[in-house]
């Protein structure tokens, strides 16, 4: 009986993993199958042309800008907020409020962020439709993700590390950046990787704040079009699935590169602290 239940559960575990992987293979396979025909040097590095035979280089550059700016702002704020919640705050009303706020933020549809960004950053703060306004909106979107994952990572650091360090007459701050943060780095990093995904994949919030200008941005105050917004417009308006998929291939490769570099950095980090 026990055996049967075990085997059933084990079977379900394998089945679930298989399904997840199968879905992944199907989606990525679909995107590559549809889009690979359009991929060429000119497509990736060429300038955009509205007649359809141009490239997507301006969108690639815009996408990289948004990822970098959003992360540069959101990562430190998110980590520090998580540190406050886990390491400093006494469990109480304030913490519950902050947690509740963070959790609620994760559930807000991006379209609402987009509308908010369009009114607050674009109009009220007079940033105009721009990469900066979009990045600030994205910062709000990924902040909860970074906070939550960092909190979980911090929780896994054994209390004995904190005691060991504090008993040596170090401050909380020293303990934090010498012992606690290094030990929770892999968890924090997975949060950042999730955030990159969210930023790169966002469309609704971006096109309301950065617009859809299909040209190389002059500065972060320029209005511009990210890869995802591009594939969104292409799908909605021209129904050109091949083109949307081709942009998708570029997106996937871009995400892959970002993830691999993040993993590489985390490995280096671990080497210098652990081994």
């Amino acid at each position, binding site marked *: 009986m026990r055996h049967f239940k075990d085997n059933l559960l084990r079977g379900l575990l394998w089945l679930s993993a298989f399904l997840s992987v199968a879905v992944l293979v199907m989606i990525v396979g679909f995107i590559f199958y549809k889009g690979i025909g359009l991929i060429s040097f000119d497509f990736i590095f060429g300038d955009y042309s509205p007649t359809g035979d141009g490239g997507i280089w301006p969108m690639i550059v815009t996408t990289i800008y948004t990822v970098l700016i959003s992360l540069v702002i959101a990562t430190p704020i998110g980590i520090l907020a998580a540190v406050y919640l886990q390491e400093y705050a006494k469990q109480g009303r304030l913490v519950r409020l902050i947690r509740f706020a963070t*959790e609620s933020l994760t559930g*807000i549809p991006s379209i609402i962020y987009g509308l908010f960004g369009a009114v607050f950053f674009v109009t009220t703060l007079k940033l105009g439709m721009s990469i900066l306004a979009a990045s600030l909106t994205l910062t709000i979107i990924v902040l909860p993700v970074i906070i939550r994952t960092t909190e979980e990572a911090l929780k896994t650091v054994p209390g004995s590390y904190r005691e060991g360090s504090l008993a040596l007459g170090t401050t909380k701050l020293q303990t934090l950046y010498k012992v606690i943060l290094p030990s929770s780095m892999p968890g924090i990093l997975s949060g950042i990787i999730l955030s990159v995904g969210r930023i790169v994949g966002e469309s609704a919030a971006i096109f309301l704040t950065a617009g859809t200008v299909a040209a190389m941005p002059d500065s972060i105050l320029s209005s511009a079009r990210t890869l995802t917004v591009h594939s969104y417009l292409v799908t909605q308006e021209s129904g050109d699935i091949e083109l949307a998929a081709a942009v998708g291939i570029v997106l996937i490769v871009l995400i892959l590169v970002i993830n691999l570099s993040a993993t590489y950095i985390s490995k280096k980090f671990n080497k210098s602290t652990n081994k």
Partner: protein
Amino acid sequence: MSIPTTNKQAVEIGKANKRKYMLERVSQRVFLFCALLSVITLLLIIGFVFYKGAHPFVAEGYSFIDFIFGSDWVPSEDKFGIFPMIVASIYATVGALIIGVPIGLFTAIFLAEIASERLAKIISPAVQLLAGIPSVLYGVFGLAIIVPFLQDTFGLVKGQSLIAVILVLAIMMLPTIVTVAETAIRAVPQTYREGSLALGVSQIGTIFKVVVPAAKSGIMTAIVLGLGRAIGETMAVILVAGNSLIVPTSLTDSVRPLTTNIALEMGYAFGTHQEMLFATGIVLFSFILILNFVLAKISAKGGN
């Protein structure tokens, strides 16, 4: 005689340490400020949405009850009822949870506990990659593969349906759930596993009775984040939902969830129509807040 542990009046603090304490105090303020930023933005967003969305009810004499329970949404004829969308949102979210959560958690367990390190090292990053695929592409995939598949396999007149939405959302929440839950499960101390295995408990028994419960908090986070993705998703859903304005009675009906309604019409809306879309946002908000509240209660109960 009592000595409070947090004594405010400083008594002779070492010179070298003064700077450290200063830094400590300053940094704590900075940390607090960062933590409060999410509260501030939440308040700003709520304020903004409510300001816009409450206007028709406060100033233009529309009835909120009619808005919630009305089943006609014809903006050009001044009819704003979102009942079908509320029902659609609930069905779609619950459906996606029912499919996505077990598969996601089981995949996470598989990767953390069952798969060889080699296999996990290949699959985990691949699943993380899925998290990065833009939702539009999921929508395209849904429109080009899932919708025709449903049409052909079940002989439907149209594949744009509640079930298509559920499938797409379930797929979309997978990577988040798998990644976060896997991290949490891996973090469970090895001593728990040893303790259980040494009692002659099978690996599977150990996983489900000791390891998973010990990772509960992280798993809840995974579900909350996955749920967030499902509720907040618009672009993929627009493409596969069909967006019909009917109260769904079967999985094969076309539906229009709340988010979709906002995204679909916001670019074209003006005046009261636009404000009603913000009002839809308020309903969505309440929906999310209630869900978070329920989840928090559940996880608190489990914590005892």
